[in-house]
Each structure stands twice: as C-alpha cells, then as structure tokens.
C-alpha cells in the first residue's frame, strides 16, 4: 500500500481540530469540531469552505483537443463556449464508468478536466492511451494544483472582496480567470452540494494562504470549515452521483439516470454503441431516490433493497437528511418499480423496513 497522500492544507485541517480519515488513499478531514450536522446547515443557510485539493486536474491541449474529447466523452463538447463547463464522464466501450468529471473549455484547443481523487492515475492513463492517435497532449497537473470550494448562499459575499473580477458575472457552470489578492487563480461557479458557490483553483503552494484569507473574510458571516462528511449528505440531498456508489464499472450511464449527459445524437463517442444497444433492448433497472417511512429506520450504503420480498438491488448511498428531516437514499430498482410512490423495502440488520420511491433531487435550492 502506498503512503497516504496529503493535500497542501493537511496541517491547516489538523490545526482546526479536524477528524482525519483515509478517503481513497487521501488523508482528508471528515469533519471539524462543530460536527457534520452544523457543517451541513452552514452550507445550506450560510457558507462553508471545503478542501477539494485532492481532486485531479488533467489538461488536454492541441489542435484536435475538441474533436478528441467529443470522441472520448458522451456530452457535447463541441457545443461548449469558452469559459463554460459541463458534467460528463469517461465511459468504457460497454457503457459503464471509468469516472465522472467536470470538463472546462478554455479554448477550442485547450480543456481542463477535473476528475475524482481516487481515479487520477486510472483516468490519466485512460486519456493518454486514447490520445495517442490524436494531435493532443495530456498533462496531469493534479499535484501542482490546489482547489478549495466555497459553498452556500453567502459565497459571493465572502469571496467578492478578495478577487478582482465581478463574481456575479460568472454564471452557474461557467468559470473565469482573475486575481485573488494578486495571485492568479481560476474561479468556477460549481460545486457538489446543491448550493450556490465557487471553486477556486490555485497553485498548490498558495492553497493555504488562499484558504486562510477566505476563512478570515468569511468568519464574520458565519463561514466554517466543512468536511467530507457533510459533503456526502449535501450531495446526496441534491442527488449528485458519487463514483464508487451510484456509478462505477458495473453501472451504465443510462440506468444511472444520467441520460442528460449522454448525447447519442452527436455521433460516435466511446461507449455509444453499447448504450444504443442497451437502449434498444430496454433498461432493466434504474437509479431512484427513496425515503424511509419510519423515522427510526436509516438506510446505509450496501443494504439490500427488497421488491415483493425479494432482493432487487442495493442501496448505493443512504443517510439521514438534515435538510429534509427524513432518512433517504439512492438505489437501483427494476424498471417496474421506478415510479414515485412505489413501495419498496430496505433490509436493515435483518429486518425489512418500509420505504417508498421519492422524487429527486430531495433538495433543490430556491433560485
């Protein structure tokens, strides 16, 4: 086993009293002293600051960058404008996931791909392997890049005084370059919480000074550091998929309910042939949200899902929802059981507990 990796903020987390855990090979803060519930509420009602420096950054450059990425990934790269971002994936030829990612268009011949920390090596090898036939270069900038995510309704108010660009001009899923107290940074209006917010990319060596400046600026407004624990409950409420849970190399992109990133009409992309076949054959299962009917029942990852008394799938993510006040989760169920209100059961420690298929996202912020 290789040594646990650390982000540039490792010492800062420890100084803040964070509880550190191993997360896909990274030593990361799961929570700070205030705890997951307080951190979750801070992001929903005020603002929280996450260290996401563990995420990977792959830069694809060259005269064929657009054509290559349109061939490699399912979403419509050719339709992106400069400065725009979309959610997409790397798919195997069988239509299952290598990883999911955010693709940033810097120009027609330059893109920044932000991938999951635990998949950086696999993704880099995947892109490089396929890039060989194209006029592109692929650079893994993960170690050199720091990233922090400011999330919550007060994000703009906290960040604006620190930067030289008008943050209100950056639309959701767009990014811009600017200076953070003189330091060149990239700022995107994205996040993994279902809340408004910004993600700041900076050189790894400057991450701690950026983090400290944002913390100092935000504290009077109620900003607290927020860890992976609440990141998970926040993204679950917003029904954002997590690699290794909702999506992996056994789930195809259509059954994962990600049809909106699968642009079958655009022409060839890796995985398309198999997804077309799967669509023609008809899906057998689909990802749905569910809510437990009894307050005492909390579904957890990997628990069995029962339909008509038989095991029909498993819980991909389950937790109590702080915002909604119910216990909820995501799971794959046979196509016949996907309608909202359908009764299913979750097997909790040997007991079949009542649940029903629920509308998602469980939480949607007011615009």
């Amino acid at each position, binding site marked *: 086993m290789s040594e646990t990796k650390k982000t540039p903020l490792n010492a800062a987390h420890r100084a803040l009293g964070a*509880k550190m855990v191993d997360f896909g090979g990274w030593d990361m803060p*799961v929570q700070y002293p205030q705890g*997951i*519930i307080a951190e*979750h509420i801070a992001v929903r009602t005020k603002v929280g600051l996450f260290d996401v420096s563990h995420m990977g950054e792959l830069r694809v450059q060259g005269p064929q960058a657009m054509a290559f990425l349109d061939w490699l990934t399912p979403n419509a790269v050719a339709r992106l404008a400069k400065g725009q971002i979309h959610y997409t994936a790397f798919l195997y030829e069988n239509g299952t996931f290598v990883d999911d990612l955010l693709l940033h268009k810097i120009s027609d011949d330059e893109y920044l791909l932000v991938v999951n920390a635990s998949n950086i090596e696999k993704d880099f090898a995947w892109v490089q392997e396929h890039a060989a036939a194209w006029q592109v270069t692929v650079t893994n900038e993960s170690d050199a890049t720091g990233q922090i995510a400011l999330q919550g309704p007060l994000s703009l108010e906290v960040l604006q005084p620190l930067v030289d660009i008008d943050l209100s001009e950056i639309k959701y899923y767009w990014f811009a370059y600017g200076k953070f107290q003189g330091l060149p940074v990239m700022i995107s209006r994205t996040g993994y919480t279902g809340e408004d917010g910004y993600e700041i990319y900076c050189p790894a060596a400057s991450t701690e000074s950026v983090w400290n400046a944002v913390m100092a600026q935000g504290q009077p407004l109620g900003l607290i550091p927020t860890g992976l*624990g609440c990141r998970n409950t926040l993204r679950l409420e917003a029904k954002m998929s997590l690699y290794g849970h909702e999506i992996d190399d056994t789930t195809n992109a259509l059954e994962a309910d990600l049809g909106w990133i699968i642009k079958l009409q655009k022409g060839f992309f890796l995985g398309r042939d198999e997804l077309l076949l799967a669509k023609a054959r008809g899906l057998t299962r689909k990802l749905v949200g569910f809510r437990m009917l009894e307050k005492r029942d*909390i579904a957890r990852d990997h628990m069995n899902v029962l339909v008509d008394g038989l095991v029909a799938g498993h819980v991909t993510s389950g*937790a*109590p929802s702080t915002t909604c006040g119910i216990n909820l989760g995501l799971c794959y169920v046979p196509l016949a059981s996907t309608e909202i209100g359908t009764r299913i059961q979750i097997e909790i*420690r040997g007991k079949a507990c009542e649940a029903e298929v629920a509308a998602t996202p469980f939480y949607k912020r007011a615009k």
Partner: protein
Amino acid sequence: MYPADAKYTKNHEFIRPLGDGTALVGITTYAQEAMGDVVFVDLPEVGESFEAGAEFGTVESVKTVAEIFLPSSGEVVELNTELESHPEFINEDAFGKGWLIKIRLAGDLNPELLDATAYAQLVAEESH
C-alpha cells in the same frame, strides 16, 4: 477524561455502578467522537435481560451505525427517554446526560472489563 468509577469494554461502552445494585450503561466519549453527530438511538424494552456481551441496541450517527453491547449481565430497569428527542446528548455529554440504559446487575460486574487507566491506554493505542 474517563471517569474512574466506571468500567469499560474494548468496544467502547461504559458501565457505571450506582452502588444500589444498578448501573448506567452508555458509550464512551471516544466512541461518540468516532461516530460523529448521533441522530437516533434504538434501545431495548424495560424488563428485558441480556448476558454480558449481548447486543442490546444501536446508535446511529449521520454517517454510521454502531451496535451496542452490554458490558455486564443484567435486566433493563430504565431507558434514557430524553434521547428520543435529544440524541445529541450523547455527543455533548456521553458519560452524563447521554447515558443509554440503567440495568439491575445480575451478580458481580463482568471481571473482563477494563478500568479507566487500561481503557485510556486502549484508546491511545487505537487513535494512534
């Protein structure tokens, strides 16, 4: 940090004899810290009896669930019903208002339990 009048299990439960043949049972400060924010507690019925080491309930936090085992044999005589509306008492004061159940001890305390010093040492090793 770990009260000397209580005994401890390797599974991070405590039992605190009250001197009248009964004892309070709960999870330790270390256990609640490891679990994070507690949101639900499932306890047995008053009148149920359990052997030492038997599972008698579960404590659920936002991110995980833990099964709780009885440190020493006995019969449940009281539940901390405050936890129904205030599960966070376990995080705030595990040894005080966060106790789980009161039992009437069946015989002597389980001799395998750790004293506060031995338990503190176990925690130091585990959290290393």
